[in-house]
C-alpha cells in the first residue's frame, strides 16, 4: 500500500509530531506509515484522510503487490 501522507503533510506545512498529536498516535507511527513500513488500520486511515480533508483513497492507494 502506498500513500501520499508525506506530500499532504508538506502541503499543510505540519510536522510529523503535529499530525501524530492530531490523530492520536506516536510520531514513530506517522513516520512508519509515511515510509510504508506500517499499513494503518481503516480507522487510522480514515482519521488521516479526515485531517487532510480528502477522501481516503486519495491518500492511500493499493500497490501492484497488494
Amino acid at each position, binding site marked *: 500500500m502506498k500513500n501520499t501522507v508525506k506530500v499532504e503533510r508538506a502541503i499543510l506545512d505540519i510536522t510529523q509530531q503535529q499530525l*501524530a498529536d492530531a490523530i*492520536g*498516535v*506516536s*510520531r*514513530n*507511527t506517522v*513516520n*512508519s506509515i509515511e*515510509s510504508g*513500513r*506500517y499499513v*494503518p*488500520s481503516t*480507522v*487510522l486511515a480514515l482519521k488521516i484522510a479526515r485531517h487532510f480533508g480528502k477522501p481516503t483513497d486519495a491518500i492511500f492507494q493499493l500497490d501492484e503487490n497488494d
Partner: protein
Amino acid sequence: MKNKSLLMPHRCQIIGWWLLLFAFLVDVIKTIFFRDLASMETAGSLARASSILFLVSLFFICLSKEKVEDEMISSLRLRAVGITAYVFFLAFLLHSLFSVVSRLFFPAFEPNLYVYELALLCLPILTAGLYYVIFRGMLWRSRKQEAL
C-alpha cells in the same frame, strides 16, 4: 471507536522499573551483608522478598502501556507474542523429540526431576521476559529506522 485494552496504565511500568531496581538492591544487600551462617534465615527471607519483588516488577513492566500506546505498538506486541509462542512451541517440540530419542537410544538415562521442576517454575518468567525483550527489540528497530 475504541477496543478495550487489557494493559495497565503507563505509570505502572515506571513503578515496575523501580520495583525491579529495589529487588536488585535487596539481592545485593543480601549477598553483601548476610553471607555468614548465623544470618541464613534473614538471607532466606530477603531472597524470597527479592524474588517476589522481581515477579511483581516483571508483571508491571510487561503488562503496562507505553507512553503513547497506539495501533502500531499493539501490532508489535501481537507479533512479539506470536514469536514467543513459536519459540516455546519449538522448544517444547525439541524437548519432546529429545526425550523420545534419549529413551530409545539411552534407556539407562534418567531425567533429572529437579531440572524439570525448575524449568516449570521458570517458564512464566522466561515467557514474560522473552516477550518483553522481543517487543523492546522491535520498538528499538522501528525507532532506529525512523532515525535513518
